[in-house]
């Protein structure tokens, strides 16, 4: 159970913009700690975003993605009050899902 994501989804002129901030250490497995021991790799491998249950984005993440990844994407469609859910899976098998309602973009 990872830490909560911050998701914002806003629609304007039939296009929904989704902004996702994920809280994750994203360790590459190459970094050493203060004692000189390698910090084990720990990173998000898959991100899936759904609009009303339908997949609108699938992404494969790797070690090149920064800590606390920030992802923005747009998809056609979406209306105020509909739901966007995002989930990720990391290399330790941990997952996290969060959901928001689409708002109208000002």
């Amino acid at each position, binding site marked *: 159970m990872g830490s909560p994501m*911050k998701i914002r989804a806003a629609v304007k002129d039939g296009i929904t913009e989704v902004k996702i*901030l994920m*809280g994750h250490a994203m360790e590459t497995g190459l970094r050493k700690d203060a004692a000189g021991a390698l910090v084990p790799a720990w990173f998000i491998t898959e991100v899936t975003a759904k609009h009303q249950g339908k997949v609108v984005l699938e992404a494969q993440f790797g070690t090149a993605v920064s800590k*606390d990844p920030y992802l*923005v994407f747009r998809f056609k469609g979406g209306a105020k009050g509909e739901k966007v859910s995002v989930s990720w899976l990391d290399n330790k098998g941990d997952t996290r899902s969060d959901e928001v309602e689409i708002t109208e973009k000002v």
Partner: protein
Amino acid sequence: MYTRIILTLALAIPCLAIAGDDKSAEEIAKYREMVSDGNPAELDEMRGEELWKTAAGTKKASLEKCDLGKGAGVVKGVYAELPRYFADTKRVQDLESRLLTCMTTLQGIPEADITSKPFSTNNYKSDIEGLVAYVVGQSKGMKMAVSLKHPKEKEAYEIGKRIFFYRAGPYDFSCATCHSENGRRIRLQDLPNLTTNIGAQRAYTTWPAYRVSQGLFRSFQWRINDCFRQQRFPEPVFGSELTVALTLFLAANANDAVYDGPAIKR
């Protein structure tokens, strides 16, 4: 020989000032704008809100009865008026020292548990820093209005000012060494002139902040700690009178500016 040194210095200082005005500052500003969207400090704000509302400590209480200056439980806008004098503790407190009071008295958490590890590291998330993120975020967009009416607040301002100009340590440094002239910089970072309103406003309203280079959210107590470390001063006591006084001095100098934290910094 002496004249030559003085001459070189006199020449060097205007050069530095000119270098500070070049494109790099503009580029850094551009970079700041690009990273300001999706500031990971928002994750700390969320964590802090959760901590604020969750019962903890031996008294199994949340912080929802904590008085940060605008009444018990009020969070909105409090940071724009801190540090301030609190009648119950009979001293001037900044956000962190006030949170410390609430956590020890309302929740019954031993003070040493909090002050021994007040700052986050890569493997440790400090609760008090999460709370700071949440509280300061609730003052975003509000005008800084730090009071200097109470005699203790006035006194703290004067103490803060003295610390700011106090030269000590192996380098004979003071805060003012770096922060009392316009156009100074360290490497490519422009240093704010904290003796002017505009300088103090720009700096103070963007702290606490998420530090990209450290991958961590940093509180104002941390900021002061790190300034002291860079001056090779002894490490200040967390939430001590000295750190609060210095914070109040800077906060009051930033009055009337719109608070814009938690920000994101390189």
